């Protein structure tokens, strides 16, 4: 068939939809290109729903898929045969049987192109599912199994059959031991990235074998492992290693770093944060051997810093771009030396460093004019002078964290706002800034993240300033900004329509009408409304109907929220995954309705639901049994709930956290 004919065909097919003939005449390829340029999944969905041509184009063109529920999984895998990336991390109640069945339904070659699979937190998937997956996906390159706390050697051994595997994340797979690791390294010799963070059973022996069997390794994360210097000796033999993270490895000391420094020159990034036994001497010897180091994270591990370290740091002048010194006691002279030695720095972390003064910051930024990220969290000695010198020197500034720097005020922020047009993130938590400061900050039209927690002097006026110019704002934290009222929210949603994360905890002047305004934030995913005692089911209803993307909702201590609110959530908030309704005035009926309707809900905290009976809990939990992964309940329920139910929950991979708290009603 000619190309022209094809087009006609599609035109005919698309003719019925609202997309019309105009779209239908375009070729599948072109439509695919169009779809690729749509950033928002929402828009893509609209296209798909409106035109069959688009639907078909997407079916053949779609490369990535994120599945939220297990029921449609087989159908989806069949519908999108050219998938390359599959994310099952949020897929509720996924287990071996459903995964195997879906893979079988995809048929021969259905998943042949799949390269990356994310199974993070998919605690229901065991070795059977993984074996089926690996067998069906011959081109598998990357698997993320992180936070599958139940995963052990057998699961990892199933992955070892994927000989082409290059990337593997096993963070917090608590049961993985040296044996499992050995399976993987023997089975997947081409591994390039491996993270075994928190796999506490892995020892030096396993790491040694890893170094021998996977010479291609480029990135390795051994954070929080109980490995010692012997591992670093093995790791130093890896010729291509670029990134090494070993946060919180308390058995590693200077000797190990010296061994590491004898390895190849490929290493670019080293993270030794929270390694208690590492001192500046060891770091100096490490730097000595690594002329190409770009990132050095030494947060919370150094107690003092010696001249030797500073002088060695200066040898990295040309390469070092990121330096984190969190928790260190620094002096002005040290900051000056860093400024002189490493003037290519892009990122500096001085969080919780005592002794950071205006002079120190001035001498640092005077040389490091490329700085984009400056973290001064809890450096509470700095004043507007420091902000002035930052504003004058760092024109590229994108991220500035000033939490608890209470000596700064609107004057300093004015300089920052005027001189840093690229500012994307600013943290002013507990800085006591006022509306005037927000008026200045509103000049930063690129602002994405704004944290104003505990700044109680901020009022609706300030919010209005922000909303007037910061249309790209994605995250806004107004924790305990208790001067804010419904009018502020009305102003906010007027300008900032892209907000995804919003924290309004303890802003107790907010009422249902304020939440009514929030209902227009269609992209809102995370909303925290803790202790808003005035809001009721009506406000929740407007959120549930308006904020279709809502994933996480915190209603703890919203004492007036009742079954009506839960009912609205149950009917509308289909994407809701995490919910906190502790201390709410709900009954068993509302809870049952909620838990049986929300098919994506995985994590629910329900402490002190005094109006819910035992039977209510029992029935509600039975209804949600297969889907829940995390549950927080009062300890007293442990004995009264039926053991079968608890067993069933446990078998479905649900972890229950029992808390023992007295019932205290407090008004903020």
């Amino acid at each position, binding site marked *: 068939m000619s190309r022209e004919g094809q087009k006609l065909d599609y035109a005919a097919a698309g003719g019925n939809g609202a997309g019309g003939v105009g779209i239908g005449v375009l070729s599948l390829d072109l439509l695919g290109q169009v779809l690729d340029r749509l950033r928002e*999944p929402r828009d*893509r*969905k609209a296209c798909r729903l409106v035109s069959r041509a688009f639907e078909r184009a997407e079916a053949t063109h779609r490369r*990535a*898929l*994120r*599945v*939220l529920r297990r029921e*449609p999984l087989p159908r*989806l895998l069949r519908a999108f045969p050219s998938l390359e*990336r*599959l*994310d099952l*991390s949020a897929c509720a109640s996924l287990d071996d049987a459903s995964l*195997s069945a879906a*893979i*079988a339904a995809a*048929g*021969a*070659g*259905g*998943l*042949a192109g799949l*390269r*990356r699979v*994310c199974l*993070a937190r998919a605690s229901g998937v065991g070795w059977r599912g993984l*074996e*089926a997956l*690996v*067998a*069906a996906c*011959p*081109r598998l*390159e*990357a698997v*993320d199994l992180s936070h599958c706390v139940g995963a052990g*050697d*057998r699961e990892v*051994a199933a992955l*070892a*059959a*994927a*000989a*082409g595997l290059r*990337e593997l994340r096993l963070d917090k797979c608590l049961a993985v031991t*040296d044996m*499992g690791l*050995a*399976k993987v390294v*023997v*089975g997947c010799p081409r591994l*390039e*990235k491996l993270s075994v963070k928190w796999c506490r059973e892995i020892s030096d*022996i396993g790491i*040694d*074998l890893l170094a021998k*069997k996977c010479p291609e390794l480029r990135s390795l994360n051994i954070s929080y492992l109980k490995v010692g210097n012997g591992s670093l000796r093995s790791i130093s033999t890896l010729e291509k290693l670029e990134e090494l993270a070993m946060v919180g490895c308390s058995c590693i000391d200077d000797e190990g770093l010296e061994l590491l420094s004898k390895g190849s020159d490929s290493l670019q990034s080293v993270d030794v944060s929270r390694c208690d036994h590492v001192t500046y001497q060891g770091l100096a010897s490490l730097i000595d051997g690594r002329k190409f180091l770009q990132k050095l994270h030494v947060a919370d591990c150094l107690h003092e810093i010696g001249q030797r370290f500073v002088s060695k740091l200066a040898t990295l002048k040309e390469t070092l771009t990121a330096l984190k010194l969190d928790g260190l006691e620094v002096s002005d002279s040290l900051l000056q030396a860093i400024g002189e030695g490493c003037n290519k720095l892009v990122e500096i972390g001085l969080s919780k460093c005592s002794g950071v003064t205006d002079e120190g910051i001035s001498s640092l930024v005077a040389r490091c004019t490329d700085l984009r990220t400056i973290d001064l969290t809890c450096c509470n000695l700095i004043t507007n002078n420091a902000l002035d010198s930052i504003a004058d020197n760092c024109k590229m500034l994108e991220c500035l964290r000033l939490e608890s720097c209470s000596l700064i005020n609107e004057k300093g922020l004015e300089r920052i706002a005027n001189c840093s047009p690229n500012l994307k993130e600013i943290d002013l938590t507990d800085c006591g800034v006022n509306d005037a400061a927000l008026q200045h900050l509103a000049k930063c039209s690129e602002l994405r993240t704004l944290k104003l927690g505990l700044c109680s002097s901020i009022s609706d006026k300030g919010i209005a300033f922000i909303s007037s110019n910061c249309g790209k704002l994605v995250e806004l934290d107004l924790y305990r900004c208790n001067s804010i009222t419904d009018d502020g929210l009305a102003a906010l949603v007027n300008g900032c329509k892209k907000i995804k994360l919003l924290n309004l905890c303890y802003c107790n002047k907010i009422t249902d009408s304020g939440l009514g305004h929030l209902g227009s934030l269609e992209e809102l995913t995370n909303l925290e409304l803790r202790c808003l005692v005035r809001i009721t089911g009506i406000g929740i209803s407007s959120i549930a109907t308006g904020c279709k993307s809502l994933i996480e909702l915190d209603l703890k201590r919203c004492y007036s929220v009742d079954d009506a609110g839960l009912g609205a959530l149950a009917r509308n908030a*289909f*994407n809701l995954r995490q919910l906190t309704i502790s201390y709410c005035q709900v009954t068993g009926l509302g809870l049952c309705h909620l838990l049986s309707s929300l098919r994506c809900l995985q994590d629910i905290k329900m402490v002190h639901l005094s109006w819910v009976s035992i039977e209510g809990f029992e029935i509600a939990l039975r209804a949600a049994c297969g889907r829940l992964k995390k549950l927080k309940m009062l300890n007293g329920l442990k004995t009264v709930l039926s053991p079968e139910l608890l067993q069933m929950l446990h078998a479905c991979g649900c972890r229950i956290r029992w808390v023992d708290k007295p019932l205290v009603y407090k008004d903020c």
Partner: protein
Amino acid sequence: MASGTATNADPDQQTVRSNSVEQFYFPRPGQSLPGIPPFFGPPSSSLYLANDNEAKVGNQLEPNPSQSTDWDPQAIVSNLTFLEQKIKQVKDVVQSMSNRENQVASGSCEVAAKQQLITADLTSIIIQLITTAGSLLPSMKNPLSSNPAVRQLSNTLGSPMGFGMNANQRPSVDSKTDIPDIGKASGYEELINSLNTTQDERDELIKGPNPCGGEGSEPTPMEDHDVKESDDGDHEGENLPPGSYVVLQLEKEEILAPHTHFCLICGKGFKRDANLRMHMRGHGDEYKTAAALAKPTRDSGSDHAPVTRYSCPFVGCKRNKEHKKFQPLKTILCVKNHYKRSHCDKSYTCSRCNTKKFSVIADLKTHEKHCGRDKWLCSCGTTFSRKDKLFGHVALFQGHTPALPMDDVKVSEASEQQQGSEPMNEISRSMGCFPCSSSDGISNLDMKMADDVRGYYSPMSFDPCFGALDDFTRPGFDISEDPFSFLPSGCTSNNETSRVNKGSNVPPLGLWKWTETLSDFSH
């Protein structure tokens, strides 16, 4: 008797040392070159004396004289002693040199001369070392000339050594003519040639200013103890020459007694000397003095006190001093453990396995720590008692992986679904993915090892040396152990493709960017 030998040996050492001191601690300026010949002379002559002495002692010790002619450990030992002395000499010289250089800036020719002295000495030591080593080899009448291994040894040793030396090789060259024993000469020639090959030119240069070594006679001592001593004399770990230590032999009752320290007054026994000393206080004021209570100091007499070694009272035991290959025990604890282990009943039985028996309770405890523990198993069927050993094995052999402990659930479930797994077996068989040799395969199957059949047979695990065994068929493979059997039958075809493609090279997609690359599928 034993102490006698020790005291006999001591004066000899003293004389040799004093000789060397006389010669080298105070080298007279300008006389250093003429001083070389006496250096090669007197030590060797003193060695003769020493040998004579040693031989006598050996005869005293050894009641059977025919033994000493046939096989003479004493001679070897004296030879070793000689080498030891030689090395000490060189050390002394070097030390004195360095001291002198620090203090006085002596003439350069003097320094050069001293260096020559040292290198000459080094040469002689190396030659003797090799000769002695050769003589230690068993079953040879004429070890150096007849044994190719020794020749090779001398060759290989020679070249690097020669490289290390930077001066006089004359004495060794001359020694060719001076060696009285012609039988050994050829061996020596080879050795010396090898030593000299790299040094010829330098020799030529040195000949002029250094016309020494006419009497270079250091090889001559070798004739005294060479041909006959071919066996043993080598003590495990330490090479104490017999006679250099005192041999003590405790009685059986003493060894088996629970206490080792007895009160001389009341007879009460103690495990520790310190406790005995505390006890002694009760017997009178004279035991309460600080001196009596103090720990007997070691260094008070350590310099002169003879080294003590122990003999096992069991006649015929190698650790008994009457044994011709007597190997002394180092400490009383060694005696106790040895005697219990070798000559007593094994009265302690392991309560876990009920098979292993021990006579030393510490051995039982060590065993119990490991008894009944999981064996560490490799996919090839080899078991290891320790994990690191298994991992060392896995690291060494391509395609071998550790086998996980058997999972009962898996097997029972798998056997329920035998039918479903049949196609998989067919596929794997037809593809011939069996990298193991047949014996490996059988042992593997015999192990009832459910784990990792696939990993083991996957193309990745092809061992180069087993690659040719494609036509290997799986004898009596237990279907119930097939790990795929739980799969729905629809998956099998996928499996096939996965097997085919597994080895193919797929380019990477990118970095860890799960969240960015994966778009939301909303409904």
